[in-house]
């Protein structure tokens, strides 16, 4: 039993040490989590903040390529779709290899996409470079960075997510005039070239991620026993966390977020047009949008801070924010119908705050449902599946507007989808319990949400091997195999004996 002993000692050492620490982050040298938050801030602004400010280039593209505005707008749609589509790929690669390498590669790809776009001679070039290549790069960057930061924090998780995502709104304030200046000085080709260089800063952000030995690495050893084809497939599915697709809580949550996404983006697309239709001037309509954006940033940070105070369960707070956001979306057309600018402004501010507030929480709830170990893959899959909601929502709202003639139906339906998502969330298991449940620590092979001790899982993790299952069966027979430390050590010892 020479092997277990050092780990045993470490475990007993680790536990009191962990409880003695501030528990703000689990990084070995403490405080490094905050450096990663800075990296998340910069990289998120270079991904989404950049994406939002690309509108300035579109005017130039329309003139240069002599294409319609709709054809040009496909560029950013392709970019966003690629980012969401390649998210699971990014997280799977992080599970298989080092996160740092994946993020740095993503940064290089994002920069390369823009650099190549500066040489474009046709619209298709732009779709391929700014859309696909940069989108692939962004997919390899965003979700892994979010997952890495979340893994470094427990108590301040929502706050750091809020701070990280607030960069989107803040950076678009800075990027809009900057891009305008770049386009005026260097024309769109030179501006895209410089943007490519700016995007390369994501590589520096990625370099800040400390390399970690991934717990899935030992799994490779076990699979040599079997035929390589099946084993590879199993390994790939474990990296992609495809087993989550049969995990009921995760599926329910993903469905809820997808429904949320159907309605979430509608105000961003249609609020300005709706305000104009209600009779307000261009300036007033744009100001409403900017004000909503400002409260969005505020909402992200405030909700993050408040959630981490621990007074309420994250899932409950998320429900509150989504319900409010859905209600305010439905109230938006009502307020402007009355013709009062103040009412429209008030509802838009409230909507902005709620939508920002829920953004911080949407990701933070995921490790509560699937556990920190599977969070990386879970986030990737979530991004992919929720993108379908966004793809459905915008054309649907446009269609409703074309059919009815005004935006009332679009907003009401959008708000309805958001509220529907909230209702779906209430069907999560243990939703109505007041206390936060411990997140599942391992793959749920049975019907338990609560799992075994994580150290146990660490040693025996592998996609399908019987040794894991064997351990579970042994432990599930023992009543004390939950919670307490020394009992699980007993379990683990027995499993080792089994080998």
């Amino acid at each position: 039993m020479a092997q277990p002993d050092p780990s045993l000692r470490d475990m007993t050492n680790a536990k009191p040490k962990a409880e003695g620490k501030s528990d703000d982050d689990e990084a070995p040298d403490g405080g490094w989590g905050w450096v990663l938050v800075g990296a998340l801030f910069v990289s998120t602004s270079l991904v989404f903040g950049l994406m939002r400010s690309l509108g300035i280039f579109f005017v130039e593209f329309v003139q240069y390529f002599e294409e319609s505005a709709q054809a040009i707008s496909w560029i950013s749609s392709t970019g966003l779709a690629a980012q969401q589509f390649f998210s699971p790929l990014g997280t799977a690669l992080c599970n298989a290899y080092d996160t740092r390498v994946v993020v740095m590669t993503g940064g290089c790809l994002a920069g390369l996409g823009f650099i190549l776009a500066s040489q474009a001679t046709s619209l298709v070039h732009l779709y391929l470079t700014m859309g696909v290549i940069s989108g692939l790069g962004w997919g390899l960057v965003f979700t892994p960075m979010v997952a890495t930061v979340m893994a470094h924090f427990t108590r301040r998780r929502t706050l750091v997510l809020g701070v990280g995502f607030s960069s989107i709104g803040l950076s678009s304030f800075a990027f809009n005039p900057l891009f305008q200046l770049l386009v005026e000085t260097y024309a769109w080709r030179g501006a895209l070239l410089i943007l490519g260089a700016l995007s390369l800063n994501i590589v520096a952000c990625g370099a800040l991620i400390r390399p970690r030995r991934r717990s899935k690495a030992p799994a490779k050893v076990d699979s040599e026993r079997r035929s390589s084809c099946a084993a590879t497939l199993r390994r790939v599915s474990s990296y992609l966390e495809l087993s989550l697709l049969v995990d009921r809580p995760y599926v329910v949550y993903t469905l809820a977020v997808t429904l949320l996404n159907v309605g979430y983006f509608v105000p961003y697309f249609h609020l300005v047009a709706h305000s104009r239709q209600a009779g307000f001037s261009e300036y007033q309509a744009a100001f409403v949008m900017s004000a909503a954006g400002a409260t969005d940033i505020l909402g992200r940070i405030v909700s993050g801070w408040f959630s981490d105070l621990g007074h309420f369960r994250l899932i409950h707070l998320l429900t509150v924010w989504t319900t409010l956001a859905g209600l305010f979306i439905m109230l938006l057309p009502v307020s402007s119908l009355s013709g009062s600018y103040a009412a429209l402004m008030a509802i838009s501010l409230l909507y902005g705050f709620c939508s920002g507030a829920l953004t911080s929480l949407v990701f933070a709830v995921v490790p509560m449902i699937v556990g920190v170990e599977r969070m990386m893959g879970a986030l990737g899959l979530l991004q992919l599946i929720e993108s379908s909601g966004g793809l459905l929502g915008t054309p649907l709202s446009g269609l409703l507007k074309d059919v009815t003639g005004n935006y009332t139906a679009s907003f009401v339906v959008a708000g309805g989808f958001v509220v529907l998502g909230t209702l779906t969330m209430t069907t999560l298991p243990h939703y109505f319990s007041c206390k936060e449940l411990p997140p599942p620590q391992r793959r749920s092979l049975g019907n338990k949400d609560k799992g075994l001790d994580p150290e146990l899982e660490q040693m025996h993790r592998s996609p399908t091997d019987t040794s894991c299952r064997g351990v579970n069966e042994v432990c599930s027979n023992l009543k004390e195999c939950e919670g307490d430390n020394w009992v699980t050590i007993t379990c683990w010892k027995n499993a080792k004996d089994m080998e």
Partner: protein
Amino acid sequence: MAASWKRLLFHILLLLVSCRHINTKTPGPTPPPLVPISSLPTDERSVSLKGESHTENVELLNPVNLALQCTWTGNQNKLPNITGFWRKDGDEVENSRVTVQLEGDEYELKRVFSIVSEESLGSYSCVFGSEAKIEFVLAAPQIGEVRDKPIVSYVGDSVVIACKMEETKPKPGSWNWYKANGTDKEQIFVVAEPLRYEIKNEERKTKLVVHNLTEADGGLYYCGAVYAISTTMGHVELKVISFQEPLKPFIAIVIEVIVLVAAILLYEKSQSKKNYTEGNGATDQMNTMTQGENNGPEGSSSTRQRKI
């Protein structure tokens, strides 16, 4: 011989005398000798003035006989007679000074002008005494949306310069493009250099495409909307820069990224070396401890939350 010389001198003198009369600049509109006045269509503009002055913009497309009518309600002391006259571009129109009677509490001035060419356009004012003035600004439709920032493009690239006449204004007959050459404007003819220039005309829009740019192509370009009465100009500035220009900030940023990444990696290496020298098994212990700590506090934090 002397008689023929005398006759020649007499003819020359006669010519000079008549020339002096011809050369005198008349402030009023001079119809070109070929177009008889009566064949032009007629139009009328009238303005009623209540205050001291007023400006009215008149948009004209074709040559026309324009009747301008000014009505003034007068001031406090309504004199029975007042002197009124017409001005064009600041100069008084000859023989336009008349005495205006007060009729029905108003003064009225009316005159017909022949607007046939670009010279006829301008500012026409009717003046009542020294107090009231109504100005009519006659012009062809102006190009409203003028891009004030220069268009930037690269050497060897091609550029599209566009001009647009608003929907609310009448459409021009055709478009012309000019390039500024010093103080002159040189018209651009596609036929002369078909490989370099391309002009695409639609009714209200025109586009000039310049291929294979060189530095010399930079400068002011004028688009002219041709109407029967005159051509209105809009201008756009083109700047041609070489590809070295954006390359400088690009390389600067790339160097900054490389330096940052190198610094981060070196810092990490020095940190790990420091930790390694602290003890042989220290790194291994750190690794297992990190893994343990990664998930350990998970359990303890949930316990903590339960207590709360």
